[in-house]
């Protein structure tokens, strides 16, 4: 009998809280799609670094469990409040609390199970979309087919069950303490009219707004320590909650002032609706704002990486193959043999990078290079040599030079026109990101060479693999005759292939290089460590480059760069950030919107009565619809507008930082814009569903 009751109740609740059930379905679908992608056997065998994606999805799943457990807990409590009278009646009929909590638990689990099963179905569809996007990123075709593997099913169901476990674990305790009278009363708890104190509480609104302004200024100011960031974050969260506390008081105070604006048709009613809602819901509104803001930020950061991935590959590995050697006279015979063995080449070019024992450019960039200058600059602006000695891996010890003939050959290999140097001139090939740091002083620098004094002619910024291979961040291009008077520093081999190089060529070339330089492989290194030949605290270092440039966030530096190998790895690593961030953003967004929607829809019975009174007072259906729209818009818009404004400041800042550190195209506003666009789509779906449902509920009885 109880099972039958649980089944019927679950069916009724599913109907009443359809938005919640649909959200849980979409959540299960997303879990399934992302988990199955992360654990897809095809992808795992295709990429060496595929584990990163799994690890990232695993990591974000922790956040997702927390947030979904919160949603489920919120919803079970919410439904309990709405149905408390019914539970009181069960108690009156002689059921004991254990039976009732068991019944309620069964209902919830049943609803969850239905959503899960539906979700797996929808998830198979999502999976096709995700996999198609994934394969498209790598320029491959994905033949549509459902992938059902045991591990991903286990992971999805495990996470889903965990959410329910954390959410329902305390529910039994909740029933334990309740009496019949309490249950009968609970339904009305939310309906108390709480008028905010309009006096002192108003101050909080201004305090919060003031803090938000200060926060925005702080964002674009200094860099802060971890403790500073934590402190600002805590204050920020507190300010969001205080904002609603104060906002409610401001509205109440406006009503109390009874200005003429209050007497416009419908205004009084609406303002009182708002203050009533804010009075009881300000904490929830604060939480919703934070959730929405996190969603927008997650989306923005995800967009940054999504858009930057191609650019990062282009900048880091523009050549099909590029091999570095410490030996300035290396002829790369073994490497060339291996390359010719595995693929057909269009062009091969080995060349030297030169040095003249000076470090003017290095010193300048260490102290003016933006991203690292704080670390290496003394308070008086001079170079902190000690810091460079200890930690300065960014630049080679000496300034790096290249012959104009080599430069032009390499340009041609990349599809660029050759360039010429004027009489007694030199040029600089530098990462585009670094150009703003070059001031007139360094541009006016004259090089003292065997040809005499050279002055700067042009600055070139083509993608040129400048993370240690073709210099670190920059190269100085000089006439061949001038280079002849310099010492060879290291050598490089650049190769253009016909078609794509095989991706395992990367591994082959790395093995050759390690052997040539007498560096043990990673496995050999650990074996030697186990035998005690190498101290335990040492870590494996295989790169021989003397500098890696100042790229931050996304940096790709390797002695061997095979575009098909490294490029794919880099893309995979980037996707391992893009997908999980988008995943978290979407989950947070859906959770926040579900709560907003359920709140409004389940209150519509209360509103039905209010709108019915208005109808009797002579408001027609159209006017009532407009009023409903205004009421919903307020409830939906306020947390969103606050989240968008605060999110915009933070996202634009994050975007600027991203552009600053990576040299990505676009601006913070651009990434924020795309993220907001997607956000708005999901938002409108929820808003539309709520508006239509709300209208139906109000007019149905009226």
């Amino acid at each position, binding site marked *: 009998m109880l099972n039958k009751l649980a089944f019927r109740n679950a069916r009724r609740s599913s109907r009443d809280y359809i938005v919640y059930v649909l959200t849980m379905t979409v959540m299960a679908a997303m879990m399934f799609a992302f988990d199955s992608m992360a654990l897809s056997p095809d992808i795992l065998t295709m990429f060496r670094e595929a584990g990163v994606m799994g690890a990232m999805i695993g990591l974000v799943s922790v956040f997702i469990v927390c947030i979904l457990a919160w949603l489920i807990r919120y919803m079970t409590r919410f439904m309990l409040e709405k149905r408390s009278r019914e539970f009181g009646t069960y108690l009156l009929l002689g059921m004991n609390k254990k039976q009732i909590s068991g019944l309620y638990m069964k209902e919830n689990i049943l609803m969850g199970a239905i959503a899960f099963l539906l979700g797996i179905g929808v998830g198979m569809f999502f999976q096709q979309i995700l996999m198609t996007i994934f394969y498209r990123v790598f320029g491959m075709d994905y033949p549509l087919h459902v992938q059902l593997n045991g591990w991903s099913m286990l992971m999805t169901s495990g996470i889903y069950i965990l959410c329910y476990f954390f959410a329902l674990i305390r529910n039994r305790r909740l029933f334990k303490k309740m009496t019949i009278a309490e249950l009968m009363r609970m339904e009305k708890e939310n309906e108390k009219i709480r008028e905010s104190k309009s006096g002192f509480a108003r101050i909080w609104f201004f305090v919060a707004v003031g803090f938000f302004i200060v926060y925005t200024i702080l964002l674009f100011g200094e860099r802060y320590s971890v403790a500073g960031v934590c402190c600002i974050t805590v204050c920020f969260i507190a300010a969001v909650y205080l904002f609603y506390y104060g906002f409610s008081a401001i509205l109440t105070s406006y009503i109390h002032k009874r200005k003429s604006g209050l007497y416009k048709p419908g205004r009084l009613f609406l303002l009182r609706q708002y203050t009533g809602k804010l009075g009881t819901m300000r904490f929830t509104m604060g939480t919703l704002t934070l959730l929405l803001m996190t969603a927008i930020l997650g989306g923005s950061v995800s967009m940054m990486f999504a858009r930057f991935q191609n650019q990062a590959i282009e900048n880091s590995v523009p050549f099909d193959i590029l091999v570095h050697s410490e030996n300035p006279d290396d002829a790369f015979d073994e490497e060339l043999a291996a390359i010719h063995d595995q693929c057909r080449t269009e062009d091969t070019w080995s060349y030297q990078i030169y040095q003249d024992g000076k470090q003017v450019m290095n010193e300048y960039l260490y102290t003016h290079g933006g991203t690292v200058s704080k670390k290496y600059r003394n308070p008086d602006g001079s170079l902190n040599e000690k810091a460079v000695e200890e930690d300065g891996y960014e630049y080679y010890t000496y300034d790096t030079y290249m012959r104009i003939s080599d430069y032009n050959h390499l340009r041609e290999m990349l599809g660029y026109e050759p360039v010429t140097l004027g009489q007694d001139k030199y040029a600089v090939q530098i990462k585009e990101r670094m150009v703003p740091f070059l001031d007139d002083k360094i541009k006016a620098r004259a090089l003292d060479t065997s040809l005499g004094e050279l002055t700067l002619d042009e600055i070139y910024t083509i993608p040129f693999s400048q993370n240690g291979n073709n210099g670190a961040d920059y190269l100085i291009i000089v006439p061949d005759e001038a280079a002849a008077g310099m010492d060879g520093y290291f050598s490089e081999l650049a190769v253009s292939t016909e078609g794509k190089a095989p991706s395992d060529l990367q591994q082959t070339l790395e093995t050759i290089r390690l052997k040539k330089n007498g560096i043990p492989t990673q496995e050999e290194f650990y074996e030697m460590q186990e035998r005690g030949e190498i101290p335990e605290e040492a870590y494996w270092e295989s790169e021989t480059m003397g500098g890696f440039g100042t790229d931050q966030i996304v940096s790709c530096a390797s002695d061997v760069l095979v575009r098909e190998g490294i490029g794919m790895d880099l893309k995979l690593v980037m996707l391992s950030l893009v997908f999980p961030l988008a995943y978290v953003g979407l989950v947070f967004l859906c959770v926040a919107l579900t709560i907003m929607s359920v709140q409004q829809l389940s209150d519509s019975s209360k509103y039905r009565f209010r709108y019915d*009174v208005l109808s009797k007072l*002579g*408001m027609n259906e159209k006017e009532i619809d407009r009023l409903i729209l205004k009421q919903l818009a307020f409830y939906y818009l306020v947390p969103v507008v606050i989240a968008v404004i605060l999110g915009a400041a933070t996202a634009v800042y994050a975007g600027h930082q991203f552009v600053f550190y990576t040299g990505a195209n676009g601006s913070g506003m651009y990434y924020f814009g795309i993220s907001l666009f997607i956000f708005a789509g999901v938002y409108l779906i929820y808003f539309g569903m709520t508006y239509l449902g709300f209208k139906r509920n109000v007019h149905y009885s009226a």
Partner: protein
Amino acid sequence: MDNMKHLIKICDIEKYYGSGNNITKAVNRVSFQVDEGEFIGIMGASGSGKTTLLNMISTIDRVSAGHIYYGDTDITMLKEEGLAKFRKENLGFVFQEFNLLDTLTIRENIELPMTLQKQKKTEIVKRTGQVMKALGIEKIADKFPVQVSGGQKQRCACARAVVTKPQLICADEPTGALDSRSAQMLLDTFETMNRKMGATILMVTHDAFSASYCRRILFLKDGQIFHELYRGQETRREFLNQILDVLALTGGECSDAE
């Protein structure tokens, strides 16, 4: 009576539910007039059709047949929008469950219909103050409905009904949710509204005591008027006895609360 103008003319109105062979006539060919300044009661047992009749007169429900004239306007011919406008400008309501908005204070509840009529702030404030004073609720003006008694809530509902000076105030079992003391105070309020403010009141009740405050009573049975009583110059006590006599004829289904 004869020199009074007919405010409302109800002509042969009918209301039936269902279709085909399964038709229930809630109101069956009812006709009467309401004069300006009248305080008229409609009595009948449960299911006699009195609330349905009130709902049709007050534009909340539509007639199945017949006509209702307010002056020269036949409201049965008005569309939804026109009805809402008519309701806004001509009618006031008092319900058993008060129907006050719990988010608004007593004062704001009274102001609300005037704001919907787009009246000026000064006029709204002035008129609300007058009505609250007349009905003795100024002291609770800034309280919320949950903070006041049932009687006070109902007086607030009366104030809201009368504040726009409507042509007709419709009251549906206004004393139904009140204790006897509050009920009496409310009925005194109705008398004040009727006599001092000139409000025309149409009240549906099944309570003989409440009905004794009216000047005229229509008795409804099975959707039809079967009797009509005028108070004339009689005292309220005498009128009550008359009502009870009529109710005894119907089988005493209505309450005879003293």
